[in-house]
């Protein structure tokens, strides 16, 4: 999956967006992986990630099958705690932690290396910054996949603020129409950036939607930036 590869934005806009994820490979190292996935996330929590997640389930914001109508008047911006996410892990699916500073990511990578879980660990983010942090953490990168951006019918793409938000879900589950609606709601003062980020994050089924970056982008939109 390329769910973390093609996020849209300038290099400056990714200074607070580093996704560290761990996964097994079927037939090679998936046996006994579930405790390792949990240990990865518990270790990550020591370095204050902006969110953690498990693929197919999501992050701390998730949709509800049976919502109480009171939510139209009062609704928390977080639906689950990080510990609840970890406790619910029973299957071998990728888990991720998102950091908003390279320093936090680097400190986490030191612990990841020391733990030696034997599963593949990847970082999605600025490649130069990642390479430098990994080196300082004593990790030598094995392979890199570079995002080369978009080609083809570019006139079918939405405007920049919408792209910056919606491409944070690499499976396209965060609709550009919904991102545009959230930008408008924030501009009109009908929702806070935190609320709007939570609505959008609920649609990302693997939970790698970065709420910190989303709030920053939505706050900028509140000033009418285009």
């Amino acid at each position, binding site marked *: 999956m*390329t769910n973390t590869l093609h996020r849209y934005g300038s290099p400056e806009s990714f200074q607070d967006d580093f996704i560290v994820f761990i996964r097994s490979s079927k037939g090679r190292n998936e*046996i006994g992986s579930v405790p390792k996935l949990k240990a990865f996330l518990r270790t990550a929590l020591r370095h204050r990630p902006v969110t953690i997640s498990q693929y197919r389930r999501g992050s701390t914001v998730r949709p509800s099958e049976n919502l109480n109508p009171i939510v139209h008047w009062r609704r928390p911006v977080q639906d689950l705690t990080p510990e609840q996410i970890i406790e619910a892990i029973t299957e071998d699916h990728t888990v991720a932690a998102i950091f908003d500073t390279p320093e936090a990511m680097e400190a986490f990578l030191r612990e990841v290396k020391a733990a030696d879980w034997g599963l593949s660990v990847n*970082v999605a983010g600025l490649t130069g910054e990642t390479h430098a942090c990994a080196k300082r953490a004593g990790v*030598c*990168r094995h*392979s890199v996949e*570079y995002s080369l951006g978009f080609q083809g019918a570019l006139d079918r793409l939405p405007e920049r603020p919408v792209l910056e938000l919606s491409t944070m879900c690499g499976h396209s589950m965060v609709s550009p129409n919904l991102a545009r609606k959230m930008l408008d709601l924030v501009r009109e003062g009908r929702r806070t950036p935190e609320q709007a980020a939570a609505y959008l994050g609920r649609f990302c089924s693997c939970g790698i939607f970065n709420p910190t970056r989303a709030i920053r982008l939505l706050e900028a939109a509140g000033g009418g930036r285009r």
Partner: protein
Amino acid sequence: MRIDSQKCVACGNCLAVCPVSAISIDPAIRRATVDRDECVECYACENRMSKEHLNPTLVRAIRGFLKLLRIRFDPEPDVCPTSAFAPEELQWPRSIRRAFSDPCIPHESTGVYGRGTEEVKTNDVTNRVRPGEVGFTVEFGRPAVGTRFREVQAMSMALARIGAVFEKNNPVTALMADPRSGAINPEVLEEKVLSAIVEVRAPQAMLPLVLRTVKEVSAGLDTVVSVGVAVRCDGEGENSVEAVLAAEGVRAFRGKTNLGLGRLTNLETARA
């Protein structure tokens, strides 16, 4: 995907939620409807909207009354008040839409969720992209434009002509009637999906040729194409692809880095 017109109250919340804008309110029946040809069966509506289970008649009555008074209720925008989505059982070839568009179900051919391929994420244990090679992921339809397989075929056949090798463990390769030519099963050519990825490998010397081929074919497609280039690094973590990309005028500052921490542990676990 269908919407149950008995339950739908035309609140309009689902319109913005659909990544490909396949949902609209039909003014003739005053209900939301799904354009079946545009719908890619991604299940964003059914799986990711929160659901209330309110009585539709009651909700319509309240909405009608508020409309009379010109009062606008400002509901939570990610909620279907009456749980009105009605997934249908999908038959071939339409079933292929969900396989490629819904990240919560695995591809039958690879057993992998999402786009159905491990790519560089597990390269430290799979050795998929070897030293001296480059791997390409050519993705169609994202973000949120969608693509039909005839567009994917235009690219896969062009890549086959220049000698690129298709990744065997990839769902698009599994759909090819002839992997040597890149021709895709004609039964699915008109099926629309949210995203599909063609994965190829080639010697590093072919990098400029592959990039040019992708650019030329993309210019003639009515979808968006995203390209990823994967490379092995040396013992110092360096690679020569960045320089080649720069020489081709390609700016690449973001990507996925495999840290090389994976091992073949299944045997170790079995012995322990």
